[in-house]
């Protein structure tokens, strides 16, 4: 109960190789670039509701983020690599999310934290966007309501693996296909 089990570890290696399009590092400079990017991520917390509280708690206990190298939290998009979406995204807020994402300089990655940011969560209503992936391309999802600090650390580790293996971006999902039942 202290982290992903062997079964899940194998499945994620399988995913990274087969499902996610990755490129191999060619040469020392390419490898150095990826190693540097993965070990010094500057984060931009885009929080609007309850999950933002749990993220602040993680930031307050500096030791956990220090180990990951992600402890610099800047509220400015021009100076950050990783955007953490924590909280519900509404139709009024969606253009702002898109414009903040566009201002970030590439290469950039996105982490969706909590059930509201991943898929709309409890709220199937007229004013909630059903998942941030309809506006910006998301890399890693963290389920939970709100997720614990340990779950967020696991998510950050996954982002690091993606950077090291050179994963390519998925396109923005416009409409999810219906469930086959």
């Amino acid at each position, binding site marked *: 109960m202290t982290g992903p089990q062997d079964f899940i570890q194998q499945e994620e290696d399988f995913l990274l190789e087969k499902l996610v399009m990755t490129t191999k590092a060619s040469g020392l400079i390419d490898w150095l670039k990826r190693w540097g990017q993965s070990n010094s991520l500057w984060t931009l917390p885009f929080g*609007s509701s309850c999950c933002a*509280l749990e993220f602040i708690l993680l930031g*307050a206990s500096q030791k956990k983020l220090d180990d990951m190298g992600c402890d610099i939290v800047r509220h400015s998009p021009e100076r950050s690599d990783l955007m953490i979406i924590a909280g519900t995204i509404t139709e*009024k807020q969606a*253009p*702002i999310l898109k414009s903040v994402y566009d201002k970030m300089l590439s290469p950039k990655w996105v982490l969706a934290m909590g059930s509201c940011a991943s898929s709309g969560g409890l709220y199937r209503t*007229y*004013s909630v966007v059903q998942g941030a992936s309809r506006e910006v391309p998301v890399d890693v999802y963290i389920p939970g309501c709100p997720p614990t600090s340990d779950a967020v650390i696991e998510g950050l580790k996954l982002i690091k693996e993606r950077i090291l293996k050179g994963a390519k971006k998925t396109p923005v999902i416009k409409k999810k296909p219906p469930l086959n039942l």
Partner: protein
Amino acid sequence: MANEFFQKLKNYFGNQFSELRPHELVVKSSLESLSDHLKFLKNDCQFVLLLDICGVDNKERDFSKRFEVNYHFLNLEKHLRIRVKVFLDETERLPSVVSLWKGAEWFERELWDMFGVSFEDGPRERLLNHHEFQGHPLRKDFDIENRQKLSTPVNLAPESYKKLKGPPPESYWLNIGPSHPITKGSLRIMVELEGEKIKDALLEVGYLHRGFEKLCEGLKYNQIIPHTDRLNYCSAALNNIGWCKAIEDLMDLEIPERAKALRMVFGELSRVVDHFISIGSMAEDLGAPTGLWFFLEQREKICRLFEKYCGARVSLSLTRIGGMSQDLPIGWANECLNVVKSLKKSLEDVSKMFSQLPWWMDKTRVCAITAKDALAWGFTGPCLRACGINYDLRKVNPYYFYDDVEFEIPLGSNGDVYDRYLVRSEEIKQSLKIVTQVLDYLPPGPHIVEDERIALPEKSLVHKRGEAFNQHNDLIKYGVRPPVGEIYSATEGANGELGFYVQSIGEETPYRVKVRPPCFPIFQAYPEVVKGSSLSDAYATLTSMNIIPGELDR
């Protein structure tokens, strides 16, 4: 004394006046005489505080007119609430009450936004939905999944803002937009600056409007409890208690004594967590981030206690209709008393780190508000008590065992930011006092009422597949059914009076649910409070008001 007052109301209103419950009066009015009735209530009967304006769409019931508007007012001296009902059609117009109560403007904008009710003195703008939204969501013929995308990007100086003051180049507009560390991601303030001084401010809310009230019309009463957790997410237990108390009062149900005591304990612990977060974020925004880390460490101790009881730290869902979801585990009460002792010790340090120190006082003795203005806008809670008015629902109209425990209500004198900080830090100590008193004398007994139509039977009996199995299945499939009626019930939340207005038609889902958020009128008064001060004072005022967007926008 109360009889004379009731006699006066009966003489004026005649048959239209009735007393629904103690402390809740109802008056049926008509469109033509509405203004006269409201003037009489304000000037002669001292119903000074406007609590709420709530609209209802009666399309699915066979009434002659489609819309119904309920005004709720409060008399502070006699602790009475009155509801004024008005029925109107789609083509008729409602008179505006902004000249009598300043805080009615946003309530009227919300009526237009949600129902399409128009007013006599001109059109209103939308409050919670975006400006390209078509339709009125809370009408019964509006589909809940009718999403409409906002196509134009954010406009920094829209036309409606330009029409108000400020000849250029002496003054200019500054946008403190929604994605800002001070506004916590969901509020927008447009400030008109002349040099360094603020001349005026305009607010925009609705960035976290999730449609809670429309969702409730399709869910059963017990399924709404996880949704109320997320209204004021800092103090989740107080919202659960407010909702369950409203439904229990509608059914005239008496819950067991142990459930009452447990609800008090969890409510006060939640209030302490909310004040920790509020003072902590105030410290961080004013330049002392170690204060935030200190308070979060203390909050961690209480969150672990919650986890040992119900399994979650933030979204608790502690209560069920009729009592609590489970009983206390063994050893919890002792642990709780130890935590309270360690909190009391560390709070002495805190009060010395902030109170009376020159750098804190220089930043926070600003932006005072008078008691008369606070009542005109509709303030309740710590912001009203910082102005000097002694009104707390736990003392004035005590519920559960609040009249058996000893505690005091701290009052400020000036109504500025420093007073709000002092009132909150003193309330933490009083809440911890209540928790120790209740845990010393915890009454024995069941933790939920033993009625088969309201509460689920015990799991061990259900597993044996007897009579309890049938009751369990029935209750989950068909739900709790309160009698036909309506109620406005209020409890003391962490920010002020948290009210729930519920209309039920005897089925398993409610017909209309409205939440009266305590920070709605407080944020509405922000432009007037901040006039004439500098930008850093405006930041300090915003954090001291403790605006929580989940509650403001619902």
